[in-house]
């Protein structure tokens, strides 16, 4: 028979780690998406030349490994800015910007996919630039970008495992702590994987549902 030293208290410890993963992911995806929409719209609106500094800034977040971003941001805030920020705060900040950099690309692609003639029609009816954005462009861009956005959110959830480097004990770190103590790596990783699956399953299904719905009309 299978035997384990894993106790109920250990399971609760893991669940807490999962809770941290969910919270860090949720905060980063929400803030990252809001910033991403802002950056994406700005990029389209400013054109390639004026938006070059912003593009470069976002490219850095997309090309430097997240682990390095976390360590550098943490050291910079602590040693250069001399600020006492919690690891949780730094984690959310870095992960939000990281998310926003990818999201801005999705938003830009979505906006570019809206035909110019559709926007001209909206403006011809007397709609302002903002009304055109709000009622025509962003809803249409959302349809285009949503499947990839779901993928982005799932990716951010998995990437959030790296925030252990700024002393945030999320799901994977909690698992590692238990592995060190209990010496049952395979079993614990299996449970950890199950937690990740339970967290992402609803989002993945939601994505599938949205995709089906938007192909219906």
């Amino acid at each position, binding site marked *: 028979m299978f035997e384990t030293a894993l106790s109920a208290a250990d399971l609760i410890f893991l669940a807490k780690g999962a809770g941290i993963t969910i919270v860090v992911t949720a905060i980063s995806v929400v803030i990252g998406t809001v910033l991403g929409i802002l950056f994406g719209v700005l990029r389209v609106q400013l054109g390639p030349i004026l938006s070059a500094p912003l593009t470069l800034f976002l490219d850095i977040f997309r090309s430097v490994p997240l682990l390095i971003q976390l360590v550098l941001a943490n050291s910079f805030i602590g040693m250069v800015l001399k600020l006492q920020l919690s690891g949780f705060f730094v984690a959310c900040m870095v992960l939000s910007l990281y998310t926003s950099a990818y999201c801005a690309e999705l938003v830009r692609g979505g906006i570019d996919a809206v*035909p110019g*003639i559709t926007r001209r029609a909206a*403006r*011809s*009816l*007397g709609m302002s630039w903002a009304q055109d954005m709000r009622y025509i462009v962003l809803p*249409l861009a959302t349809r285009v970008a949503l499947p990839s956005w779901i993928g982005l959110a799932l990716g951010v959830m998995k990437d959030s495992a790296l925030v252990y480097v700024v002393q945030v004990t999320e799901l994977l770190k909690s698992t590692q702590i238990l592995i060190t103590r209990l010496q049952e790596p395979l079993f614990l990783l299996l449970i950890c994987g199950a937690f990740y699956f339970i967290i992402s399953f609803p989002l993945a299904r939601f994505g599938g549902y949205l995709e089906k719905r938007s192909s219906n009309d």
Partner: protein
Amino acid sequence: MIEIQNVHKSFGQLEVLKGIDLVVQKGEVVTVIGGSGSGKSTLLTCINGLEPINSGKILVDGTEVHAKSTNLNKLRRKIGIVFQQWNAFPHLTVLENVTLAPRKVLGMAKAEAEAIAERQLMHVGLGDKLLAYPSRLSGGQQQRMAIARALAMAPDYMLFDEVTSALDPQLVGEVLETLKMLAEEGMTMICVTHEMAFARDVSKRVAYFHQGVMAEIGAPEQIFGDPQHPETRKFLASVR
């Protein structure tokens, strides 16, 4: 009244309008004919300020369209335009397509906007499609929806840019009938068209455009019966 005074317009090096003069009176229907690339579409998009001009003036009811002080969003409320390419808002139902601008631009209440939209959609023969999405409509129905959408803003002027040229031949008639009906109701219209029979039937005057110049303008009987400009003759011979 729409007054177009010596309008020049270039895209980069290419001069597309080379000094256009045209006055369209209230209640008048003017059709514009001419070869492809002669500047017809550009003229329409200059009239509602979608395109800037290089020199000259366009006045709509005395308001200079391209003056810095002009509120274009406000001016456009009284100038409806329907394009050649179908341009429905694909994420909105037919009814929502038509109510959007009255609600958001004119600030109308939902019920009021819907009443107006239903009336306009009925008018163009789409009373049974209110809840359909545009992708379920034929090209002709989409164009009629675009006409209803423009009319729901109660415009004083309507500009039509070859609204039938992207349609299958069997759908052209229903859209032209709708335009005819509007003309008979006294709407002030500028129609760019390739449909010569339509131009002859509904217009008070027909303008012939050639390479950015309005080569000739006159009553339909004169333009079609006794064209003065050699290019007009050539063009009419080619479309017959």
